[in-house]
């Protein structure tokens, strides 16, 4: 290999690239770009929905129409379709969840920011835990604790096979669901960021190496642009899937008669 890597390019990209330094050197190590991004996302959502709904009119203004469209999309297509008429009371939480996940995911491809807080496992994990607590509390409140446990843990099977099946049902319902919710979102954001890092930094590495590889760096950057568009699609899809699965679990918890 006659290529020489320029020393200042962090190549190859690794997990360490996801651990960012604190914004002000020497202060609290937790105040990084990621923390700031989460605060910005929360503030942006609160301000957006407050401002657009300040004086709602019957004939909506443009901003009010945008806010209503976002809320209407989640309320009609997710809450009402999946949970039924009873599900309208979950529409505010599902809208907030969808918008927050979408916004924090989008930070991953916005030029200049290019880091999604969801590529750290902590944020998807907390969101998944909140959804898990929500669908369990809803089910317990609807049916009572004993009946909810009976409905969700005991499959229709002869009594002598039940000891075999109940641990499987327990793990599949109470462990697998929040775990896959969190890991699905985390893995998509992590992998997306890694791929973009590989192609972008790879272009710079090839540019700085021998003369034969320098033109190939353009191909690498074109791939990075194409993958950014793919990442945009993945971002919207993952936000939607997270919300739809939460709604589906709530529906399963609410209607548990066998």
């Amino acid at each position, binding site marked *: 290999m006659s290529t020489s890597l320029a020393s200042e390019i962090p190549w190859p990209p690794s997990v360490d690239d996801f651990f960012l330094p604190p914004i002000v050197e020497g202060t609290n190590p937790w105040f990084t770009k990621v923390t700031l991004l989460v605060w910005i996302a929360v503030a942006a959502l609160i301000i957006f929905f407050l401002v657009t709904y300040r004086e709602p009119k019957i004939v909506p203004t443009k901003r009010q129409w945008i806010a209503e469209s976002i809320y209407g999309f989640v309320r009609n297509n997710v809450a009402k379709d999946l949970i039924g008429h*009873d599900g309208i009371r979950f529409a505010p939480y599902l809208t907030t969840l969808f918008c927050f996940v979408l916004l924090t995911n989008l930070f991953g491809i916005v030029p200049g920011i290019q880091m999604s807080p969801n590529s750290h496992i902590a944020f998807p994990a907390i969101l998944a835990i909140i959804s898990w607590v929500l669908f369990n509390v809803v089910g317990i409140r609807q049916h009572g604790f004993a009946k909810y446990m009976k409905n969700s843990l005991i499959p*229709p099977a002869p009594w002598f096979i039940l000891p*075999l*099946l109940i*641990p*499987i049902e327990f*793990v*599949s319902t109470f462990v697998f669901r929040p775990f896959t919710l969190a890991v699905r979102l985390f893995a998509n954001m992590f992998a997306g960021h890694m791929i973009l890092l590989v192609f972008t930094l790879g272009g710079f590495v090839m540019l700085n190496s021998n003369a034969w590889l320098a033109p190939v760096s353009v191909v690498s950057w074109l791939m990075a642009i194409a993958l950014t568009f793919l990442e945009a699609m993945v971002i919207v899809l993952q936000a939607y899937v997270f919300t739809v699965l939460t709604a589906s679990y709530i529906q399963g918890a609410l209607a*548990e008669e066998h």
Partner: protein
Amino acid sequence: MVRRVMAGDQSPQPPAGGAGQGWVAISYLIAGIAVWGFIGWLVDQRFDLGGVPIGIGAVVGAAGGIYLIVRRLGV
């Protein structure tokens, strides 16, 4: 005699669409193998049987997972 029909009486429908059912199916299989493989490992640690209970547990768990899928998603 009138039977009251309540909104909560609907049985949990399997997730709409094939992809949702696919996730349920694979989750039962993996959960079955993991849970019973782990129980088999605990038995192995306790009685020091040389790895056999893990295999038995995994197969039993796979069978349980298949049975659950047939019951929930099958005819």
